[in-house]
């Protein structure tokens, strides 16, 4: 009901009320600060100038464009939101932190619809929490692939990790793949074997559940593959294209290093998707993250200023500006129309990214701490003496993911579903306060559920951690094999737990 009302409200807003603001109401001059990557500072200045001259709303921006690295923007915003840029670009991995830090203003209904329609759906999903967009997609090229030196690695070897390692060792050249300091790169091995770390947030951006299968038989296979690489004396934990001039034969990095590598290797540069590794006779193609860069609007106090800033953000991330950025800096667009253009399709760097794309995983929403927790797997795997050591590395990782949530085993949950368990969308979780829960059941047989231990299902903070199975604290007998509590009649129920007994009283 609540959801329905919310949707209705949104619909009403979208179709009837929005846009009351006429052009003259936004007209004016605004002093703003914009944070973008160093290489597009001049371009962005020009784009804002163009906007000032062409917009029909009478808006003039007096913009200070500062070079702030997309990797730093998040950290800086969190130090002090007020001092941050009114518009700022950041890499996707910082999105969750920024939402939680209150550093991103939500998009209005109209802007949200326009942006969602114009951009690649996976990128839109990356900027969405609940049903709301929090940022404007800027690029969709934040992925990695393999650059190699053709004089060291013969073309027939580029598909095999083992062959490449052997070639590097024979030539005393380095295989550069950032395994020890970056979760973003090392996830490659886990994605190869089908592991996932999928996080979900509620409407406020709080993480409510994670499906993480890094610690699994598949994860162990991934660790074995990673072991081959990190234990090679010619493995280098770096993702800088410049390593080619410091004795590297292979570097795994992204499109941003294209010019650098080209400058060093010239015609000897090879670009391709990541190789496969082999464990116990099975071959696994290395995966990758495909992420994006986003542009955020700092939360504003004044609605007029906020609306004007959103107008500019929409323009700067729109089709025209993305095309310009692609033309001048080869930034891979997120805008569907620009993506489809011939020039983009023909770009060699983007082509390599495209080759890797069948094996890539959209980055989605990931808990800000995951990056710190996962990045030590590389060191742990390197230090592992045997298979048990590899398993310990994964156990350690899993412990830390669990430790993100403070478990309160004294609280119990009632997990219920409307119209049966198969309909996962309609799952609801209720917390038992002092072992008691009062519940409204609107229809007979409408809701069934089970009482579970939060250690296996959820926590008092609202985080849910999906593990194998859900432990039931009471067996409801043979005639109810699923151990579901089913409410036969509509009405208001009080459920109390007394030791192992569950008492259900209809009020």
């Amino acid at each position, binding site marked *: 009901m609540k959801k329905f009302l919310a949707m209705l409200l949104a619909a009403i807003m979208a179709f009837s009320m929005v846009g009351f603001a006429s052009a003259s109401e936004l007209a004016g001059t605004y002093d703003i*600060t914009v*944070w973008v*990557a*160093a*290489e597009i500072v001049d371009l962005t200045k020009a784009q804002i100038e163009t906007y000032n001259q062409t917009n029909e709303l009478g808006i003039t921006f007096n913009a200070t464009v*500062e*070079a*702030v*690295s*997309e*990797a*730093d923007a998040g950290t*800086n915003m969190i*130090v*002090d939101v007020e*001092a*941050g*840029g009114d518009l700022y670009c950041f890499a996707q991995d910082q999105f969750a932190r920024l939402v939680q830090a209150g550093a991103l203003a939500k998009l209005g209904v109209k802007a949200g619809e326009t942006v969602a329609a114009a951009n690649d759906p996976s990128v839109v999903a990356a900027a969405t929490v609940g049903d709301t967009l929090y940022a404007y997609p800027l690029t969709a090229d934040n992925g990695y692939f393999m650059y190699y030196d053709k004089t060291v690695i013969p073309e027939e070897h580029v598909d095999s990790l083992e062959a490449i390692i052997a070639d590097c060792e024979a030539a005393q050249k380095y295989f550069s793949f950032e395994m020890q300091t970056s979760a973003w790169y090392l996830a490659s091995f886990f994605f190869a074997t089908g592991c996932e770390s999928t996080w979900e947030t509620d409407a406020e951006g709080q993480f409510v559940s994670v499906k993480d299968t890094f610690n699994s038989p598949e994860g162990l296979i991934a660790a074995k593959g990673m072991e081959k690489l990190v234990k090679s004396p010619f493995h280098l934990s770096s*993702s*800088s*294209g*410049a390593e080619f*001039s*410091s*004795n590297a034969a292979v570097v795994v990095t992204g499109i*941003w*290093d294209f010019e*650098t590598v080209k*400058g*060093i290797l010239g015609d000897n540069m090879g670009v391709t998707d990541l190789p496969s590794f082999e464990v116990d006779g099975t071959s696994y193609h290395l995966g990758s993250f495909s992420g994006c860069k986003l542009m955020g609007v700092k939360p504003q106090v004044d609605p007029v200023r906020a609306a004007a800033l959103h107008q500019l953000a929409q323009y700067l991330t729109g089709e025209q500006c993305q095309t310009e950025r692609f033309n001048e800096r080869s930034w891979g667009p997120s805008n569907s129309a620009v993506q489809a253009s011939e020039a983009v399709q023909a770009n060699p760097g983007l082509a390599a990214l495209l080759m890797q794309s069948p094996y890539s995983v959209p980055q989605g929403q990931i808990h800000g701490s995951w990056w710190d927790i996962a990045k030590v797997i590389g060191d742990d795997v390197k230090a592992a003496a045997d298979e048990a050591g590899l398993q310990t590395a994964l156990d350690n990782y899993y412990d830390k993911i669990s430790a993100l949530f403070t478990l309160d085993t004294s609280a119990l949950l009632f997990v219920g579903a409307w119209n049966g368990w198969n309909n996962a969308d309609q799952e609801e979780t209720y917390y038992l306060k002092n072992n008691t829960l009062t519940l409204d059941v609107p229809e007979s047989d409408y809701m069934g559920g089970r009482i579970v231990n939060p250690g296996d299902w959820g926590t008092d903070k609202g985080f849910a951690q999906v593990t194998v199975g859900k432990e039931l604290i009471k067996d409801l007998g043979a005639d109810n094999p699923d151990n579901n509590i089913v409410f036969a009649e509509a009405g208001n129920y009080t459920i109390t737990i007394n030791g192992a007994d569950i008492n259900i009283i209809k009020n």
Partner: protein
Amino acid sequence: MSEMQNSRRHMGLKASRTLANTAIYAFLIAISIIWLIPFVCIFLQSFRVESTHQVGYVIPQQWGFDNYINLFQTDFPRWYMNTFIAALVTAVFQTIIVLCMSYTLSRFRFKMRKPLMRLMLILGMFPGMLTMIILYRVLKDLGMTQANSVPGLILVYVASSGMGYYVSKGFFDTIPKSLDEAARVDGATRFQVLKKIILPLSKPIVIYTILTAFMAPWGDFVFARYIAFGASAGKNVAVGLYDWLNKDQISKCYTMFCAGGVLVAIPVTVLFMCLQKYYVEGVTGGAVKG
């Protein structure tokens, strides 16, 4: 017989001394090379024009001043001026404050003296890094962050400099007290004693203090970075150069970073070379006696 022995011993002594000196020369040459290698490398890198990223060799394939020329197309001159101003103003005020503090604690005997020194000793044991966050907020309330961070930096450097009084107090302690007393008997006020008697004798420590105060701001990339973020105009040279090492910039700015490094090193090194004598006198006069 004994004469012969003597002269043989003498010769042996001379030979062993020559041997020892040769060994020492070899040692000094070796460490000089080790000490200079990084600087020579940085210096050479700054003249490399064939590429702008880090490379695995030392000697450039193509030489030129491109990096230095490019440096002046960026905000580098601005950062350089910021740092220079900060260093200069800090040097002046910090010297005044340190001298006030150390002179007082060395020469005056008042009730709160010992507790004050103890308090400052205790305060000095707290890691200063911890207070970055709050100093940022205080400066922000004063409007001295981001683009205006130069006065903020100066304020923080100068304000807390009173804590570093040990070395110069140690120096003042070595100036005989009888000098003051004689002048006091002649009717000089305390201020006149300071001006006419103590200061003229304190040239080494004054120069030492100026020198250390002037040098510190050139290398501050932690605190300055914390308060100047997001505003190129407020960066000092250390922050500006340090930010070029960011992943998205390093491959385009590395040689420029080296060139910038050379330009930063030159004035400080020259100054240091010229005033080295006083530095040594100051530090040996003060450092070990506090």
